[in-house]
């Protein structure tokens, strides 16, 4: 979460022999020094020697201090190269200067330090505090005579601070979602940019001072002009405080549906990495203040065709929760959901699960919604036609079922909709969905049922359950007996709607593992241990538009749908069958298509200019330069992909470095190609990848030709050269 504007991108190839053991988190650089601090709470300074080349060798390394907070908000660099200011772990001590020039302690209370910024030209430090105050420290070079003034507007913790480039104004932000611009360090002169959507976590100024940008807790970057005018916002998946709804796939758009902004439901398109739309469910104003109990969305369910949407919202109260069940009907005209029925207090206590009966072939009137609650009942809701002449429908309760006064924890329908399984603490009950008779019960004591699901297609006679005692059980519904059980601490149990496969994610010894199995055989067909270090909270199978051809047997189960995970840090992950290079290539193809610009006067001009340049390059035989132009797809991808969806730098670094290397094999291949230029023209060296690339090149040149025809301004010599280019072998490009 390190966040700053770069005027250029520097790559420090840091080789610290004795420090490689610990993970270095942040790098801050001043002109001659780099400060590093790690998760071991050590601040290290590295002295940089001046060197001509890009590679520097830094040998002087000294530990400055121990016990530094790992957050980048806790350290700032001042005007003097040696002056830096940081906060101790407990956040009550401000230490100024390298040789502990001054140590300032806050009284225990609500005024711990939260963030720090240094004035760019003067000796002034601004600190943000947990009580919402900003203190500006001055004269801190004197042990006793230091003084501070206070700016106070925020009512909650000041999350981040940034000085303008001249230091005349100060920006601050916090939970209130308002960016405050303080002029001249005065409490009376301030400007606001309100309604930024969610709490501001980081603020950064561009080096020329024309832009500032804020990073918000909901995973959004807002770019703001220097005159506090909103300019642009960059937003992918919204990070909500807590994903209570689970990962649900909208059957209509195939978008991932989950908690978005507070009280909203976000529809997130996985292919384009953008939010399709946000549906306001709670429809109440959200107050940006910490510690308030506000209504939030907790459960969501779609009917099979996506026509109906059921949502549950609740307001956490200690004594009695405020619950609302809402049913929304998709309106074809407005292409949006419209509220149909609102049910206040559908259950006496929290609703634990909710599902629609998914029966594709049946008509609307067979649609049933089941809710399970902690008040020891499950309720069946059906549509009834209203008496008014318009013939509209609304929902009402049809049946209330309970089992020995146990809390109902999960519910699900079998694939054909004939059976409903409801788990009551340790017991799974199976009900006939027409007569509402209790058919049979299963249990696997000890341990309460955590998840249940029915098998699908060929395995529809099985019911799978996971207990919190660490068992995965498969019951046969025909024999009403336990088919098999496995000792596995399952957190997430997710059936694929398009196949028999069921994915189970376990959490054991601080790592998540994935097991994919078919209910009819007790052996998993795919195991991925150590999927990630974080706890996986949720998973979802998203159906692919068309079944993918997967060669590897191992990944065969991913043919029809793709599996997505959400960790407890709200990182969305997926399981890919291809390597990174492979995945990046197709998108670079897209980029190539992009280059065939629509014909506008500017594009013509641009096309001509580019072509000329490439001709000149070839003329001079500047192979190296040429290579630079034809950047590897990986690098292109690196530069074109939005920063917030890029994988970590450590992951990209080897690819980038590899792309700069000139491999020997290819060079020799090129030489060979040169030698046998005439003959090899038709006998192309066959490899799948190369063919792909040459195809791409041909596309390119044809486009150029097209342009050339249109402009008809190519000289004879240029055409000659063009032909020459066409003859040239570009197979060496494939290496990249």
């Amino acid at each position, binding site marked *: 979460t390190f966040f700053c504007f770069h005027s250029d991108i520097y790559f420090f190839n840091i080789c610290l022999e004795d420090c490689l053991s610990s993970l270095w988190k942040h790098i801050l650089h001043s002109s001659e020094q780099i400060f590093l601090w790690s998760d071991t709470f050590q601040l290290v300074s590295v002295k940089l020697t001046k060197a001509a080349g890009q590679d520097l060798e830094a040998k002087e390394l000294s530990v400055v201090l121990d016990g530094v907070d790992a957050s980048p908000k806790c350290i700032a660099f001042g*005007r*003097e190269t040696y002056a830096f200011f940081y906060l101790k772990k407990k956040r009550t001590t401000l230490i100024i200067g390298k040789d502990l020039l001054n140590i300032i302690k806050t009284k225990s209370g609500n005024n711990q330090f939260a963030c720090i910024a240094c004035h760019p*030209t*003067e*000796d002034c430090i601004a600190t943000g505090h947990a009580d919402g105050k900003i203190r500006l420290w*001055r*004269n801190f*070079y004197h042990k*006793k*005579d*230091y*003084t*501070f*003034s*206070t700016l106070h507007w925020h*009512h909650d913790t000041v999350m981040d601070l940034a000085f303008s480039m001249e230091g005349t104004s100060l920006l601050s932000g916090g939970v209130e979602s308002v960016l405050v611009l303080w002029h001249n*360090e*005065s*409490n*009376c*002169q301030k400007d606001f940019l309100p309604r930024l959507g969610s709490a501001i976590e980081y603020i950064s100024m561009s080096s020329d001072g024309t832009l500032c940008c804020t990073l918000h807790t909901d995973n959004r970057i807002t770019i703001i002009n220097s005159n506090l005018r909103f300019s642009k916002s960059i937003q992918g998946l919204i990070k909500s405080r807590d994903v209570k709804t689970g990962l649900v796939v909208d059957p209509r758009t195939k978008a991932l549906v989950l908690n978005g902004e507070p009280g909203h439901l976000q529809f997130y398109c996985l292919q384009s990495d953008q939010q399709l739309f946000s549906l306001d469910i709670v429809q109440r104003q959200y107050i940006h203040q910490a510690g308030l109990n506000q209504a939030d969305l907790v459960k969501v369910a779609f009917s099979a065709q996506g026509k109906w949407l059921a949502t549950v919202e609740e307001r956490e109260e200690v004594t009695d929760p405020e619950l609302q069940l809402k049913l929304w009907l998709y309106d074809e005209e407005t292409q949006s959901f419209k509220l149909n029925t609102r049910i206040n207090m559908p259950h006496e206590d929290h609703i634990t699960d909710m599902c629609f009966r998914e029966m594709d072939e049946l008509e609307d009137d067979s649609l049933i919604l089941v809710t399970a609650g902690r008040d020891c009942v499950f309720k069946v809701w059906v549509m009834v036609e209203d008496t008014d002449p318009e013939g509209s429908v609304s929902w009402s309760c049809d049946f209330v079922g309970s089992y020995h006064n146990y809390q109902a924890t999960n519910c699900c329908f079998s694939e054909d909709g004939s059976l409903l399984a409801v788990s009551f603490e340790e017991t799974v009950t199976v009900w006939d969905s027409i007569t509402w008779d209790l058919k049979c019960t299963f249990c696997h004591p000890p341990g309460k049922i955590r998840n249940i699901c029915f098998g699908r297609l060929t395995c529809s006679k099985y019911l799978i359950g996971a207990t919190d005692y660490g068992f995965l059980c498969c019951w046969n519904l025909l024999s009403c007996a336990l088919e098999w059980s496995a000792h596995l601490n399952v957190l997430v149990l997710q059936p694929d709607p398009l196949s028999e496969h069921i994915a189970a994610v376990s959490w054991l010894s601080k790592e998540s593992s994935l097991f994919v199995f078919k209910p009819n055989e007790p052996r998993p067909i795919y195991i991925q241990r150590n999927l990630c270090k974080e706890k996986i909270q949720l998973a979802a199978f998203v159906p692919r538009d068309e079944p993918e051809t997967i060669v590897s047997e191992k990944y065969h189960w991913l043919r029809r749908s793709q599996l997505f995970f959400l960790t407890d840090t709200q990182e969305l992950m997926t399981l890919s069958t291809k390597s990174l290079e492979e995945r990046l290539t197709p998108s670079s193809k897209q980029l190539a298509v992009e280059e065939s610009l629509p014909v506008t006067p500017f594009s013509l001009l641009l096309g001509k200019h580019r072509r000329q340049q490439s001709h000149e390059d070839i003329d001079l035989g500047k192979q190296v330069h040429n290579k630079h132009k034809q950047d590897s797809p990986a690098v292109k991808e690196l530069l074109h992909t939005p920063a917030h969806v890029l994988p970590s730098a450590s992951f990209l670094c080897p690819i980038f470095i590899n792309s700069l290397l000139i491999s020997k094999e290819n060079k020799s291949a090129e030489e060979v190609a040169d030698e046998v230029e005439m003959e090899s023209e038709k006998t192309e060296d066959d490899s799948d990848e190369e063919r792909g690339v040459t195809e791409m090149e041909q596309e390119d040149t044809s486009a150029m030709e097209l342009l050339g025809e249109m402009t008809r301004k190519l000289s004879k010599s240029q055409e000659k050269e063009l032909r020459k280019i066409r003859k040239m072998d570009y197979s060496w490009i494939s290496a990249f």
Partner: protein
Amino acid sequence: MGEFEVHRVRFFGLVPAGVRCLACQPRGGRLALARTDGAVEVYNFAANYFQEKVIPGHETRSVEALCWAAGDRLFGAGLSGDITEYDLALLCAARSVDGCGGPIWSMAANSSGTLLAIGCEDGSVKLFQVVPGGIQFERNLDRRKGRILCLSWHPSDTHIAAGSIDFLRVFDVCSGQTVQRIMVNYHVLKVRRECIVWSIAFLSNGTIVTSDSFGRVQFWDWQRGTLMESHTVSTSAVLSLAVSEEEDSIVVGTSTGATYQFQLLPVKMGSLEKRWVRTKPFQHHTHDVRAVAHSSTALISGGLDAQLVIRPLMEKVQKKGYDAALRKFTFPHRRLVSCARKARLLLFQFSQHLELWRLGSTDETGKDGEVLPLCRMPEHLVQLKSKGPEHIYCSCVSPCGSWIAYSTASRFHLYRVQYEGDGVSIKKVPKVPKLLLPAYQLQFSSDSGSLFVASARGSVHVLQLLEPGGCKHLHTFRPPSGSSEAVYLLASSADGHWLAAVGGDWAIHIYDMKCFKVGAGAGGMTPTSLPPWGAGCQWVQRIGPLPVSHCCIPRAGLGMGLWEEMGGGHRWPRLLPSACCPPALQHHSTVPMYNCAVTALAIHPITNNLVIAYSDQQLFEFSIPEKQYTAWSRMVQNCGLHRVWLERDSPITHITFNPKNPSHILLHDTYMFCVLDKSLPLPDNSALLMNQSTLKQLPETARQRQLHAFKICKKFQPLLYADLLDENCLVMVERPIMDIKTQLPLPIQQKKFGT
């Protein structure tokens, strides 16, 4: 601690007057303060900010400006148009000179204290020369329209800056001409609004600092007439401003009750460029901060909410201790309440009237902390209004409740109160002896037979009260070495033998009244013994209406010879027989000098030990018969008092004793009531001083080990007076701050987040 039945009195409706102006004595340790009712007070920094002198107010004498000149002379000027010099020894207004320019809004003395400049309603600035014995008009400076609201001398005394409405002017003192005129107006959308320059300061580098009604503090270059810096500190007016002597710090006070500090700080380390930066905000007041002062170690502010706040600058204080504590003074450091123990009456002193109340009573008993229902409600018996514009200096009610005495600057009144059933009749005692007025403290003897009147020059008059309603001057005590300062505290012993008096020079004199027993039954005086004074021993006194006489005792047992001054240089010799002459009233001893102000003293009824509390929170016990400190007092001085005790920030204002328990001393300040048990060991610094609540939870054996001499109760706050009625009945007079706030005008409405 012992169990007491406590009368918790909250019907003393005192509303202290707001603070109007403050003046720090240049290079001195005193702060002068003027209140909106015209009262002037002097606080002594060296004596832990003790309120050393009080000059009560006057209806027609408002004070708008105070300043020290020529060392320790204090001048005040106000809307009456007069410049008044205050006599700090006699505690009264000494001389007044008409400024001849209408109401005076501002006054400032030059750095050497030889010239006073006043700013008047008619727009004139006048210079007065300070001469011995008064001031002399010197000349007028250039007069323009517009009242002069504030003035400041340049430290070199060559120029004066004067703030008015919408502009400020700079005068050349030599030529008397206006050399610069700077507009400070404020434009909002082309509408000109009046801008009042409330306060001004002229710095030695030629910078003029102004504070105005638009909440701005502005820094001007006077020669070019340009604005250098402008800081908006408030949405309402900035009313007051003060600069430190080093000119590196400024304190300003606003009408919202907030004060701010400005500091001149280097922009970068080691660079010469400095800038004024607004630093610390303080919100101690609820109403207008009309006056601020900047001492070398503290920021001082006074507001219309009657609070004087002294906020120390931590970086200037060398060690943590008494000086490093924030202190707030709302109530005077002397008693305004007197109590008639036997009659269970309370006399409350207001600025211009007295109220006599009878305490309620109950016939029930209860457990610790229980509130007992009253069977008889407290009763407001009498309200005595003082005539004339002068405010009351002091008042007292006799222990039997039948005498009330009070004094203003020029008059002394004695009343006889008679109780017939539920009715009260009050009768003024005619022909009170003409004493040297004003009286600074009044004290009845414990048998209500005589009245002690503290007077100027260290003297104490003794009046004999006569039935059914008369009085006679008996004697005047004077310190043997003479004194110029007024007596401000008195204490008499229960047996009528001793009288202790403290003057403004902090010397405690003890007088012997042994042969001065006034037997209630005998109705006269009987000399019991005469001291071994030889012939020729002289002292000066006044008897009756006659002026000063000399008298001497020729020989023991023979009586007294004296000269009566008849006027015109004529004297009549007279010999009084010993039976009717005043007995040998004599100076007994002087308590060794201690370099701090005495805040309270009392004589123990049984042991006749004098207990003294000083403003640095030290306690002494002086045995009068033995003329030396007692063993306990020496032990206290050797061991030292508890650190927390010494760091308390309000002085002890009253001491009393429990006759049933001779080792107990009862004392209180504004925030605590303490029973000091001399029989218990003193607490050391590691022990908890205020341990009453923890002691309650301990078992009996552990409690015995934890006990120490100081038993402190902080339940009653702010405490104006506490006294013991009988052995298990206390009266506590409280004045809750909230009750005062409701009496004040509404403060400026401020939007407060979350309300």
